[in-house]
């Protein structure tokens, strides 16, 4: 709807100082907080629960010692990053990951000082909170890659949650609930696609209005119908946890990743399939070409309108699964406004993940981790106000779109309706 004013950066940018500067800031922060503001004696990290196959001992980390160690390590990595940037190389991904990991260790030790943190619980909660975000983000990626901005992720999640709760309760089968959630997400997508592709209505407007429409519809039907017959309509059976034989016995990550419900395993498959298909198959190539340059795609005989329509529908189906996770995977019954902005965090993950399925999944995990960390810290009583932890995904996204975290560029034709002239 509006032209962005970004100057196209040329490809001859040699030295990027963003990574070392960001590293430097975090190192200073860790020095101030983990060392100067340190109050506690030590933090207890529990690495396994009692039901685990292999029991790991709990670790006690001294607060001050860990703070000094982490800060020194971060400082070393910052220096290394300056060295890399000076030679015109970007900081390797392993270093950024290691930096994040050690900063988190320092942070957890500081925040949980004189307390105990259950690591598997922290990670399990992270996965739980991330699942709908990941499905929503995948829906967003497919939709935006084909050239239709998907603000309606929230609506697709909510519709999926509502319909899956009702159908699963009526039929007694969570599988049918899951399928109906996909249909519900697809129906929301049909409206989005019809209005934006067929009637050329501004995609953002349709998305925003659809969110309100789905919120209104589900809340109305919930208060008017579901809440009056909870036993008949809104007590869906939940998916059972399935242990994957050997994998679920790996310490720490085994129970987190491989003792989960069907929806989580479905997530692994769909992320892998979408990541592969988007970049390696004919379908993916056509989809991306329609989103980047519809006229060129049209010239070589791709039906732009139909490609957009059906892929937006597919995106809605995937987001619908994420909605089903709310009712069939975690909470167990539909509640008013139960998605509570998850669709918008998923949108944030799409952008932070630069429209790439794997990166967006990692972004969703990061956001899930941030909100779960807030839960954990509020229980053990942390010095950081919980609101600031909850703010994190949104702040990070603003930094991402403002270009502080690498260059973020979406599909070129996203948001632009295409008409043959």
């Amino acid at each position, binding site marked *: *709807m*509006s*032209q*962005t*004013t*970004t100057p196209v950066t040329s490809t001859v940018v040699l030295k990027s100082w963003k990574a070392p500067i960001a590293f430097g800031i975090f190192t200073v922060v860790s020095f101030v907080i983990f060392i100067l503001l340190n109050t506690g004696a030590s933090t207890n990290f529990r690495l396994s629960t009692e039901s685990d196959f292999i029991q790991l001992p709990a670790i006690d980390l001294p607060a001050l010692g860990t703070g000094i160690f982490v800060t020194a390590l971060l400082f070393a990595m910052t220096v290394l990053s300056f060295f890399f940037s000076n030679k015109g190389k970007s900081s390797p991904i392993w270093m950024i990951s290691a930096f994040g990991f050690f900063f988190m260790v320092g942070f957890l030790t500081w925040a949980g000082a004189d307390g105990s943190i259950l690591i598997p619980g922290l990670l399990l909660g992270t996965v739980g909170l991330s699942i709908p975000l990941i499905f929503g983000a995948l829906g967003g990626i497919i939709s935006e890659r084909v050239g239709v*901005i998907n*603000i309606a992720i929230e609506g697709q999640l909510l519709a999926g949650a509502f319909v899956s709760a009702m159908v699963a309760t009526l039929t007694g089968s969570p599988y049918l609930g899951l399928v109906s959630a996909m249909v519900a997400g697809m129906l929301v997508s049909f*409206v989005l696609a019809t*209005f934006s*592709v*067929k*009637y*050329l*209505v*501004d995609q*953002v*407007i*349709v998305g*925003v*209005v*659809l969110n*309100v*429409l789905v*919120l*209104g*519809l589900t*809340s*109305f*039907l919930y*208060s*008017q*119908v579901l809440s*009056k017959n909870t036993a008949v309509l809104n007590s869906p059976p939940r998916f059972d946890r399935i242990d994957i034989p050997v994998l679920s016995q790996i310490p720490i990550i085994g129970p987190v990743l491989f003792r989960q419900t069907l929806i989580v395993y479905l997530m692994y498959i769909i992320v892998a399939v979408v990541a592969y298909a988007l970049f390696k198959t004919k379908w993916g190539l056509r989809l991306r070409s329609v989103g980047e340059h519809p006229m060129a795609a049209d010239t070589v005989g791709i*039906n732009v*309108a*139909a490609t957009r*329509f059906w892929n937006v529908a597919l995106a809605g189906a995937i987001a619908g699964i994420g909605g089903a996770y709310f009712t069939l995977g975690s909470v167990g019954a539909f509640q008013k406004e139960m998605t509570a*902005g998850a669709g*918008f965090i998923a*949108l*944030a993950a799409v*952008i932070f993940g630069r429209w790439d399925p794997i990166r967006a999944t990692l972004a969703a995990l990061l956001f899930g981790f941030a909100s779960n960390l807030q839960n954990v810290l509020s229980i053990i009583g942390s010095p950081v*106000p919980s*609101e*600031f932890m*909850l*703010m994190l995904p*949104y*702040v990070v*996204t*603003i930094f991402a*779109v*403002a*270009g502080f975290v690498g260059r973020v560029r979406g599909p070129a034709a996203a948001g632009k*309706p*295409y*008409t043959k*002239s």
Partner: protein
Amino acid sequence: MSKKTPDALDTATTEIAPPSRWNIALKEMLGGSVVISILSVLSALVVGAILIAVTDPGVHKAVGYFAARPTSTFQAIWDSIFGAYSSLFQGSVYNFRRPEFATGIKPLTETLTFATPLIVAGLGVALAFRVGLFNIGGRGQMLIAAACAGYVGFTWQLPPVIHLIVAVLAGIIGGALWAGIVGVLKARTGAHEVIVTIMLNYIAFYLVSWMLRTQGFLQAPGSNNPKTAPILETAVMPKLLGPSYNLNTGFLLVIALTIFVAWLLSRSSLGFQFRAVGENPNAARFAGIRVDRMYIYAMLFSGGLIAVAGVIQVLGVVPAGFSSGIDAGIGFDAITVALLGRAKPWGVFFAGILFGAFKAGGFAMQAAEGIPIDIVLVVQSLIVLFIAAPPLIRALFRLPVPAGEPKPVSLRRPRVKAVTR
């Protein structure tokens, strides 16, 4: 936009007499925006009626013996719909059950009370629209404005009128600056305003939530609730029609602002530049308009207007102290109001009154008939969806298509005729 097809050329050459002027005028009126708007409202009300009838318990009971007495089913359907819409009307315009005019007209003043913040927030969204910006950040801007105005309102000690003016200005500045962040990011880095405003909504929400539970910021002194102290008498907006009506002087301010925005957009130099940027930013740049500055100014104005809605909520509607739900969904309703008013100041004014009526009547309907107020959300969003897609309404009511209107895009592949020799 659309090229003349061979068919059109043929008819043009064979046409004998041009259609009469009345014919053209009638066609334009039927195909034009006024009729589309009215039909959109009607269609949305019909869908709402269907939803009400389908979920009504009385109708369910009557359907049970439909074969025995079909008339009672229709009677029940009529009762449910008539009951709902008549209580909607009596709750928003005139209550016939009251004996005197003074009490009977109270619903209309309630409508105006609800409309007051909707109109001014709608003006803010509409102004941004005209510059080609989509400001979804109404919620955040209102919250920040409410926090600023509220803080001045209950902590500073100032003489009566001055206190009110200072509090209003504080709110406006707060909201304008919060929206200004978006403008600056858009102008400097090209960050998409939709994403940034959505993210800032959440950041503002968590920021205000935190301030509301922190002593020294917004929390009432000596209290544990996340709620502010009541606004001091000197900063409360006086009631317009005496103590028995809720309508406050904010309404006069809103009328003045509507006139101001109408003047700004159509008569001022800045407004001309705004509209030029909105129509075509590239052309505007060539004409010597500083497009990036216009984005910043537009967001400042837009945020300032939306801030007035937050200020009116705090100083006029609930002066007894507020919590984090003070925005009451107005920030999002404002988008639908602006769309319904087609981003024209007086259009927004009347759209705001219509939605104010829906809100006032919705509460009456919920109280009298037990129909959840969420139905209002459904009707509102349907109105906007229908208005956004005139071809859909034209197809539904078989209206003529005005000339120069883009046709809906067909999903089917155009059939290529085989070349025969």
